[in-house]
């Protein structure tokens, strides 16, 4: 048995896939804007996990990318939550079923 080049790569990628799928499923199925938002974070972090796991093979650039994603995610969280707050003030609800102003 030789030392594996990237220990736990397989499980890490598997976990990332599971997390991402959970996120997608959440976005598709849930109607609450807050939950939807959390699911998006979940997907982002699943991708972060993939980056970190693969950084073992490809060097530090993957890890750097993770910081960028976290920064953007933070900004997105700030803007997104503000929007949700505004929507709630306007409609007294965060149920996405009721928010269809863009219907053609």
């Amino acid at each position, binding site marked *: 048995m030789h030392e594996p080049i990237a220990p736990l790569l397989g499980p890490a990628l598997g976990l990332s896939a599971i997390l991402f799928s959970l996120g*997608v499923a959440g*976005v*598709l*199925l849930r*109607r609450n804007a807050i939950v*939807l938002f959390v699911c998006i974070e979940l997907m982002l972090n699943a991708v972060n996990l993939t980056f970190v796991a693969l950084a073992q093979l490809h060097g530090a650039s993957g890890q750097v990318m993770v910081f960028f994603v976290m920064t953007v995610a933070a900004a997105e969280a700030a803007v997104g939550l503000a929007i949700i707050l505004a929507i709630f003030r306007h409609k007294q609800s965060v149920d*996405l*079923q009721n*928010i*269809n*102003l*863009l*219907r*053609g």
Partner: protein
Amino acid sequence: MIAAHWVWLAVAFPLAGFLVNGALALRRKPAVQAVSIVGPGVLLAAFVVCAGIYLGLVAHPPHQAEVIRLWPWMHVSGLKVDLAFQVDQLSAVMLLVVTGVGSLIHLFSVGYMREDPGYARYFAYLNLFIVFMLVLVLGSNLPVLFIGWEGVGLCSYLLIGFWFTDKANADAGKKAFIMNRIGDFGVLIAMFLLWRELGTLDFAQIAAKAPGTLEAGGTIVTLITLFLFLGCTGKSAQIPLYTWLPDAMAGPTPVSALIHAATMVTAGVYLVARTNVLFAMAPISSAVVAGIGAVTALFAATIALRQYDIKKVLAYSTVSQLGYMFVGVGSAAYAAGVFHLVTHAFFKALLFLGAGSVIHAMHHAYHATHSHEDAQDMRNMGGLRRSMPVTFWLMTLATLAIAGIPPLSGFFSKDEILASAFARGAEMPIYYLFYACGVVAAFLTAFYMARLMAMTFLGESRVGAEESRHLHEAPWIMTGPLLVLGVLAVIGGVINLPTFVGGHHALETWLEPVTAAGAVFAKVELPHGSTEFLLVGGAILVGAVGLLLGYRATLARKVPAAKEAPEDTGMARVLNRKYYVDELYDAAVVRPTVWLSRVVLWKGVDQGAIDGAAVNGSARVSRGLGWVGSRLQTGQVGVYVVVFLVGALWILRAVIR
């Protein structure tokens, strides 16, 4: 020789007059005094220039036309057209007629139109007309002539519809314009053909090249001349395009005298005389010209017999006399045609201006008594001789002239045309028929003119007692030009006295350099001796009997006033309604055209195809596509995510493959 180079001045003076009067017409305040000086003044100046040019030509008669190139116009691969004027014997005659008679009519207009609110506009149009008429007779090639040809048509339109607030007048203007367009099409086609066959549009070059290039009597020269003649039938009001001229009487009477009697309508005769070499080479076309002329002369004369509007009688008389001119030029007697053109300009302008003076007086009388009777209906006149002696006597002279009573001008010119047609009969017997038509038309001419004079000036007055007191002779500014025209109408014949009264055909000799090219192919030998005297005697007899019968027939019965007059019946009704030709054209041409325009072109093509299918159709298609696209936009985030996911997976699959 030098004088000819100043010919541009003759055009420049009226043009300046047009600009000045046009500017004055735009001012709110009428400038009657300035217009009265500028309007006729520029014409007199132009007349002086033309007289100078004529005297120059008399002093040194040129053998070929003096061409004055002003500037190059179109130089395109072989086609070389300059804006050039041509001074020769024929254009000199036309110059004198146009500016001479034009000056007199301008002077008359000062009296006739002075109180009209559009006084300055009137003189602007009238000056512009003279400009174009001079360009027409001076053009040294067909395109320049065509500028004038179209320009006089435009001015004719503007002046017929001068009182355009009345729809009938505006319609008459449009009618004249459209009918002339049909003829103009013919002139254009003739130009194209000439260019293709001869490679030139210059009159001098046409005369030089045509005999060698074209086959005499061939199809091509016949086609060219027939298309040219189509233009003449439009401009000179011959069958089948004559119906606009009687309607053109809607314009002011001096306009009828200038444009629709003396000058513009004779442009067709001028064109035939100018291109005489082509017509001489095409005997069939010449026969058509003479035939149409003869039939028109007869046809229009019969209509004139039963018209009641004094101007309508004169209008049909003009159509008829133009027919005579075409009989002349169609019989290869180009000088005779031009001769009748000149004398007709004198006596017909006199008749029209006399009629204008009568209408002026009648109008004032009705105006003073607030009557709404028709001031042009002869049934409302009668006995005017007592109140308008000068007009009466001058119009009597013109009547004798048009009826062909010697020694007045019309006698000589009409006689020469009839003699020419008779002489041509020796070669082509059909010309005997044309001659017969001409003689009958001469009789009818005398008859309807006597009727006009009798109804207007003789017999008992139908004007009404109150109105009669307001009737008065026209002012001197109107009777003065009448007097001059009266003198010309009497002595006009001297320009071309025949040999049997001791003359030597001066005009014919004068025009010889112009007609020489055509004379090679067709030349008229006038009859001599007993035949000549028989023809002349017959013509005089016909005229005298016509006058007498017309006078007797009109005064035999009491003429009822217009509002009491019974409806005409039978043949009189047909003649009064002008053989229903207008109705026929309306049914055959106007209504089908309107139907085609309304039902097919408007409702079908415009509203159906263009608006419906093309414009609204494309809008409807875009809207449909937009509707389909908008169904995708549910506003539900979930749906977007599903679509997004499906798309992403699909792309992923494509990338991995």
